[in-house]
């Protein structure tokens, strides 16, 4: 919890003055029944003085007005503090997420990070608002009412105290009983969402098999489950209001009976009875607020833990000292590199050594799960090798400043993302100060000039994730984004899979004609890498063969099998 105090620092005064003014309002509110009792007992019963009564009324109005002003001040402070706190935490969290590396992103998951940044921080923010607004007020009123009752008459005061404990117990019990059902409710709701989603996503399959009735029965079952659970919650929580109402008002009945004796003995006045009953009502309201606060804080606490988990996650990539690259050295050199995602001995890559000379074009091929993507991800240090050494242009990747290292690369990962904006704004990611000519050239290299022109040029909008482009068009735009900065090393990780063979070949030819670029092509297609200067065949994280196409076809069984399976009919 302490770690979040700094985010409140600039609002120190609001944090102190807000609750303080709220406390003044609550204190004034507590005094009202006493003033009323005074009006009745002194103004009416004792002196029968209209002037005294009017004066009392004036005091009540003044107290109300002062309380109102205090409350306004408090609400304003609370709004500023909580929104400011939320803003600070959100910014810090988002910044922190931007320091994390692939490994941490894998572990936490994108959607969970989004939920934490948006919903969880909001939850914490409203908890801060409630602390300032209500945490002082509600308990103060509850306790204060009991204390004042004790002051008026200690025996009846004890009765009031007992009744408020009773209300507390009921509130706790009902919350306690319903919590597990609420958790279940969420599961049932998720199930409904899942089935509805499947029937949209799989609409064609459902229709092709004509299984409408089956799907309906499935949904009906889930809806019925949901109903049963909701009814259970309803049955329990419907006790809340009647029970608290009954406890408080039976308390009032007892107070009345007892008061009868006390009044008869001259120990209590009518005005005091009215005040006691009034306090009883205030206690009930305050207790309900407290129970709401408890559930809010439980939620906020869970949210806080989820946010803290992100803050506690540190990037596994430590920045290097800032080595300069030696452009005469081989572009890539791997020396006995092993890698595992979980940090265990279950290696995704094992004992890999290879060298890519500067300016060469290299192909990497293998089945799914053979470690191709993992291998290329080690080069721009998206992950650190578990063992062994990765060298780029003669220097260990760990010696570079991370930013400098990544500027050497142009990479097109699998399922690369485009971002909302324009074609131009997406390309500028690859080179911030790219000119119109450079943009046009990059689009040409990626064979994207045609459809971009058709859509109306590079200033045409790109929707979120590039949804307004087809899969093949998206791939070509991400290629253009990678080549625009004329990187020293270009990595294409299965990034032509949605292109037809002709376009694929043309893009590769364009890239090959770029001068001084070392190109690494990862592919499932033998045809895409066939012309490479060197081909590495991966199998289960190991190099199963290396060499040029003709050589490999002769010597490497796996490579031959891949080639044959893809062009069987051609022979």
């Amino acid at each position, binding site marked *: 919890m302490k770690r979040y105090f700094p985010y409140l620092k600039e609002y120190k005064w609001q944090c102190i003055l807000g609750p303080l003014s709220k406390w003044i309002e609550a204190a004034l509110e507590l005094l009202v029944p006493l003033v009323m009792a005074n009006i009745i007992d002194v103004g*009416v019963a004792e002196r029968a003085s209209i002037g005294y009564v*009017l004066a009392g009324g004036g005091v009540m109005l003044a107290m109300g007005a002062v309380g109102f002003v205090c409350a306004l001040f408090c609400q304003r402070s609370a709004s500023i503090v909580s929104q400011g706190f939320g803003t600070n935490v959100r910014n810090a969290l988002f910044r922190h997420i931007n320091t994390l590396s692939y490994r941490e992103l894998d572990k936490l998951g994108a959607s969970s990070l989004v939920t934490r940044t948006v919903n969880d921080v909001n939850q914490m923010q409203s908890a801060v608002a409630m602390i300032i607004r209500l945490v002082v007020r509600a308990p103060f009123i509850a306790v204060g009412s009991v204390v004042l009752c004790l002051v008026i008459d200690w025996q009846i005061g004890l009765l009031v105290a007992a009744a408020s404990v009773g209300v507390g117990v009921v509130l706790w019990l009902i919350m306690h009983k319903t919590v597990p059902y609420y958790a279940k409710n969420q599961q049932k*709701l998720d199930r409904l969402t*899942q089935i*509805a989603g499947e029937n*949209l996503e799989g609409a064609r399959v459902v229709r092709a098999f004509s299984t409408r009735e089956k799907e309906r029965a499935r949904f009906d079952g889930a809806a019925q489950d949901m109903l049963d659970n909701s009814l259970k919650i309803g049955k329990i929580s419907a006790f809340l209001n009647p029970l608290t109402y009954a406890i408080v008002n039976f308390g*009032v*009945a007892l107070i009345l009976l007892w008061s009868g004796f006390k*009044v008869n003995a001259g120990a209590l006045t009518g005005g005091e009875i009215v005040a006691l009953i009034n306090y009883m009502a205030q206690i009930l309201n305050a207790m309900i607020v407290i129970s709401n606060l408890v559930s809010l804080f439980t939620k906020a606490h869970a949210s806080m833990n989820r946010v803290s988990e992100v803050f506690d996650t540190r990037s596994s990539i430590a920045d290097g000292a800032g080595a300069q690259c030696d452009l005469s050295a081989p572009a890539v050199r791997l020396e006995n590199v092993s890698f595992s995602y979980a940090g265990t001995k279950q290696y995704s890559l094992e004992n890999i050594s290879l060298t890519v000379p500067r300016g060469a074009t290299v192909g990497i091929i293998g089945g799914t799960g053979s470690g191709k993507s993992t291998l290329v991800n080690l080069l721009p240090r998206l992950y650190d090798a578990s063992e062994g050494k990765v060298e780029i242009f003669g220097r260990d990747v760990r010696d570079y400043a991370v930013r400098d290292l990544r500027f050497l690369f142009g990479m097109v990962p699998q399922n690369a993302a485009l971002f909302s904006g324009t074609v131009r704004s997406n390309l500028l990611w690859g080179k911030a100060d790219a000119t119109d000519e450079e943009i046009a050239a990059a689009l040409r290299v990626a064979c994207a000039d045609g459809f971009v022109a058709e859509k109306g040029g590079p200033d045409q909008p790109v929707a979120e994730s590039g949804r307004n482009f087809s899969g093949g068009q998206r791939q070509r735009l991400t290629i253009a984004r990678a080549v625009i900065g004329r990187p020293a090393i270009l990595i294409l990780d299965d990034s032509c899979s949605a292109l037809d063979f002709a376009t694929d070949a043309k893009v590769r030819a364009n890239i090959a004609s770029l001068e001084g670029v070392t190109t690494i092509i990862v592919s499932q297609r033998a045809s895409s890498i066939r012309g490479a200067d060197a081909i590495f065949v991966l199998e289960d994280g190991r190099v199963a063969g290396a060499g040029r196409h003709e050589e490999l076809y002769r010597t490497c069984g796996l490579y031959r099998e891949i080639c044959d399976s893809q062009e*069987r009919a051609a022979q």
Partner: protein
Amino acid sequence: MKKRNEKKALRKGIVRRLLGYVRPYKGYVVGAALFSVLYVGFTLVGPVLYGFAIDNMVGAGQVDFAAVYRMVGGFALCVLLAALSQKLLGNCVNSLCYKLVRDLRREAFEKLTDVRIRYVDSHAQGDVIARVVNDVDILSDGLLQGAAQLFTGVMTIAVTLVVMFVINYIIALVVVVLTPLSLFVASSITKRTFKSFSMQVKVQGRLAAHAKEMIGGQKTVILFNEEEESCRRFEKIDAELYEIGWRAQYFSALTNPSTRFVNAVITAFVCVLGAVFCVLSRGGDLVLGALTLSGFTVGMLSVFLSYTNQYTKPLNEISGVVTQLQNAFASAARVFEVIDEEGERRGGSAHIERVRGEIRIEDACFSYDPARPLIEHFHLDVKAGSKVAIVGPTGCGKTTLINLLMRFYDLRSGAIYVDGVNAADIPLDEYRKLFGMVLQESFLAGETVAWNIAYGREDASRGQIEAAAKAAYCDFFIRNLPDGYDTVLTSNANLSQGERQLLCIARVMLADPPMLILDEATSNIDTMTEMRIQKAFRKIMQGRTSFIVAHRLSTILDADVILVMNDGSVIEQGTHAELMEKRGFYYNLYNSQFAR
């Protein structure tokens, strides 16, 4: 003005329809009404009784114990009955509410299983799901809880007013005059709150969208060293949110203190006026100049004080209920939009006894958008048992053909004949069962493996399921799953894309349809799985009329007919040899795409 009337009429329509859904649960409605009357009655009689009790405790030695016992006893009974009826009221409203939710969800979902594919294709899934799941909740919360609150609120106001007027109409009048103050304050705050909140929602939406997009693509952000820029943009939106957000919060936080203040004012007035009347009517009637009222007592004052409390509460809540109702109506309209969506035409009287699998498409015209013609006057003859390969560059309209064959979309003109029977005359369900479909994006439900394989044939035994799995080369990887055939498939985990497609093949094998529509995978499947899929395809196509979207040489070379598509229409058709001889589009396509 006209717009307003339309809106009114729309609401009326919605209310009428909702009443239709409520009808089966009339009992709950009657119960809710009855118990809320009882509840309001008993809670309001209570304070009157204890007021009398207080009046019977005049001072030391002047307490009428018999009367006090009677009044307190009556009060306790009222409390008991009020609590009981409140509980029963809660039960009625809850049952009504939740059952209505279930019924509406069911009906909306039934429509989802019945709507035309065009609807599914043209609506965002998240939005449709929200209608079926969330909007129904908002609707029932708003309408039922809102209506219940409104009903008890109005009742409370009416009864308190009557009792107050009976006890002392002057104070009652003062209360009535002061009340609009409270209403005015509440509604002016609500209005401002609503405005600033809708602004806040917009900015918040932008912030969430940015976070979702950037964090979703965080790996790309890292790759391009764009972290700083992304943070900067986030902080800019967040700063905007701060400015709008704290004000929105402030306005909404005004409600409680403001109503508390208004209540305090009313209480002060009642207290002073009541006390003055007590003074004036000591020992007899209350004489105010020419007016003479029955005497006012401390007990009556306590009744008034408790009433003003109960009376202002529902008044303040009403403004909240109004917004809740507005939201509920908006949600109801969204739910009914789904329910009213046009369903598929499933009728037809023609039947095919034994399907040979001969397909003829005659003069078919179709387009998704009437302004942009797509398939025009298309003819095709497919002999029973032959294999039709569909080829063409990416985005040439291969899916359109599948859409038409499966009758996911209707032809604009022309007809498809199966064994000489017009497809449009065959009942839709019967027609679709003639085809087995394996698409590239293989859809499996989040149920067990066995459930998914038996999807098209509910009566299949475990043995049959396993046999189909073996035939489709699935058995070995299914056995490696944690619970074998009973493993529940989750959307992201346990199976690779290729394995999922194999399961889809097993599913079709078990259903054993007379004709097939297959879509070969283009990429992202490893070599071994790929070979298995091809083997399974070949096995299942034996002796059946098959349409196959082809990406492989082996498929097109032994096809009986190749349909070459470009820009949405079939531009050439024939066997491989015929098409090569033509030296047309196919010839070029073959040389660039298939040959090496």
